[in-house]
């Protein structure tokens, strides 16, 4: 079976996907004008897969994640689109969920592990209290059962459960807090877990612990993972598929190896070329010239053209849409045929 040429059709064919985003746009109101944080994103996330959203600060990746769980700040508005969530044959339209239905969707269906795990815990409540709060909000009444399950999960993330569960957040290190949060994310057996920069601001050895942990947990529990990072390396370690975001939209999406070894969007290529590796000899690196675009006053045409070596008149005038390159591999570039990583 070959994938359709049109990206929208491609997303539409995955009717069984755990999460499907249709044409999502999110705007912020700012003093200077409207911030186009997310522009017309369509995306599907199959049950059990692990998709990485890669982009730099201001690419809209965190906004998109917050939009999915409906936690955007008041000044932000999802101006169009649909989020369809499916589990065991049940379908939910996330953007139309209200009140208790929305509350139950959160964490029980889609849990989100935040970027700043350092502040993810209420400083005045013990870890146990915060776990119990979560369970209670989703209908658990048996304190003993919750505590037993919490201890198992804390064990699973390699923490001294007996000790950690009765501590206050400030008594834990950053890495420990991040692991507690991951354990807490598994508490209600959600189908989808969104991880926003799960390892940023952590030490290398702690990062490694978390990466291995996530890989093992995913193998053991088979949840669906959407993670967001500016760090390509995390994607290489954990993702089946990668989507590159630039100026609020997806510019390239495909299987991990395809993206790394045959990138077809100049931005993806630039990102890969800009990151040094430890293994192997010395490689010459290049950075992408210029700086990320102003989301209030976006460039015309392809938003990447001011920084792009391949840019032509057409790029300045017309914005390209995602176009099929290979099986499951789509890129939004007029000149993808000339983009060759070997050069």
């Amino acid at each position: 079976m070959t994938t359709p040429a049109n990206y929208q059709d491609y997303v539409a064919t995955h009717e069984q996907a755990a999460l499907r985003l249709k044409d999502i746009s999110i705007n912020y109101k700012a003093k200077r004008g409207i911030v186009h944080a997310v522009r017309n994103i369509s995306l599907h996330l199959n049950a059990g897969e692990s998709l990485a959203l890669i982009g730099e600060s201001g690419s809209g990746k965190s906004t998109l994640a917050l939009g999915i769980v409906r936690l955007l700040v008041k000044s932000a508005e999802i101006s169009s689109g649909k989020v369809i969530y499916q589990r065991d044959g049940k379908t939910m339209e996330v953007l139309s969920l209200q009140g208790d239905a929305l509350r139950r969707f959160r964490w029980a269906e889609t849990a989100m592990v935040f970027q700043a795990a350092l502040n993810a815990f209420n400083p005045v409540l013990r870890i146990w209290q915060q776990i119990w709060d979560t369970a209670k909000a989703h209908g658990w009444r048996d304190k003993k059962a919750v505590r037993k399950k919490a201890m198992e999960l804390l064990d699973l993330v390699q923490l001294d459960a007996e000790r950690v569960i009765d501590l206050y957040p400030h008594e834990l290190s950053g890495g420990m807090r991040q692991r507690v949060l991951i354990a807490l994310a598994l508490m209600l057996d959600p189908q989808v877990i969104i991880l926003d920069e799960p390892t940023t601001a952590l030490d290398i050895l702690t990062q490694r612990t978390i990466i291995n942990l996530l890989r093992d947990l995913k193998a053991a529990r088979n949840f669906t993972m959407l993670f967001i990072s500016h760090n390509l390396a995390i994607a290489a370690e954990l993702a089946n598929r990668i989507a590159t975001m630039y100026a609020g939209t997806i510019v390239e999406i495909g299987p991990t190896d395809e993206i790394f070894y045959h990138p077809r969007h100049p931005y993806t290529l630039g990102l890969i070329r800009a990151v040094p590796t430890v293994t192997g000899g010395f490689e010459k690196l290049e950075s992408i010239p210029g700086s990320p675009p102003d989301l209030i006053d976006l460039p015309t045409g392809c938003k990447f053209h001011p920084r792009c070596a391949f840019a032509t008149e057409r790029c300045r005038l017309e914005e390209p849409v995602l176009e099929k390159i290979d099986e499951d591999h789509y890129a939004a570039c007029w000149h993808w045929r000339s983009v060759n990583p070997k050069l």
Partner: protein
Amino acid sequence: MITAVDSVSISIMPGDIVCLVGESGCGKSTMGYMIAGLLPASDGQVLFKGKDISQMNKEEYRHYRHNVQIVHQDPYASLNPTQLVEQMLMTPLLHHRRVKNRAEARAKAAELLHIVGLTPPADFLVKYPHQLSGGQRQRVSVARALTLEPSFIVADEAVSMVDVSLRVSILSMLTHLREIFHVTFLFITHDLALAKYFAWEEGRIIVMYLGRVVEEGPTQRVIQNPRHPYTQALLYAVPEADPEIARTKKHIELREADIPSLLNLPSGCSFHPRCPFFQPGVCDVSVPELVPAEGGGRVACPVLNKAP
């Protein structure tokens, strides 16, 4: 009582590129601050051109202070939000009488901006920090560090908060400075990949763990043939931006995931509670000495670096 840096002894020769690598809390920033004269060393000494800085007379100390500058990590905190770029660059010049008048100071400031790649300088002189991007701010930080024409720059995690796509260009700018000004660099980072990239040709890497140097040596040797278990653990832990390497790379399983508190340092080699090569009675008894390692440099591990 916290001992941030314990018995560290390193020497840096003019024109060197030295990367100080370690995790947060290992004392690498404390080291950088002591070298830049921002923190006093309570015990021991910092020698500059062979002279102990605490024994220097006023004039010598001034000379030393002006010769050693620092570039900080956070481009959002390292520039005074109430000052224009030109004020930041002109003040040190005027204060230390490196120029005759304001016009000359302004010309010099423009020249510095040009050197760090902020062109045309006229556009950047009259900007406030909040009008600049993270990468641009970091360049201004570097330009400010260059005002007194230092011979030594401590770059404390200087690119770790800059967008990935711009990091390399700032690193190359720093490398370029070394070529034109013969500046000696102490590059403090937690990222071995950056250390490798920055110091590959003729640099050295010093690895610190909980306030002690555990290994040092030429970059290529340390990266390709790490001798200390901690260096190995760090190297293998670095996530690689290459799926093939990520799949095949070997990993070291640590015995303990969490770093001990500085308040309660383990006995002997402070890495022993986490070290997979731990040998009871050896590692937990006395602090291992740094001894010459095969292929250059020194390493402090009695187990992996056994004398032949």
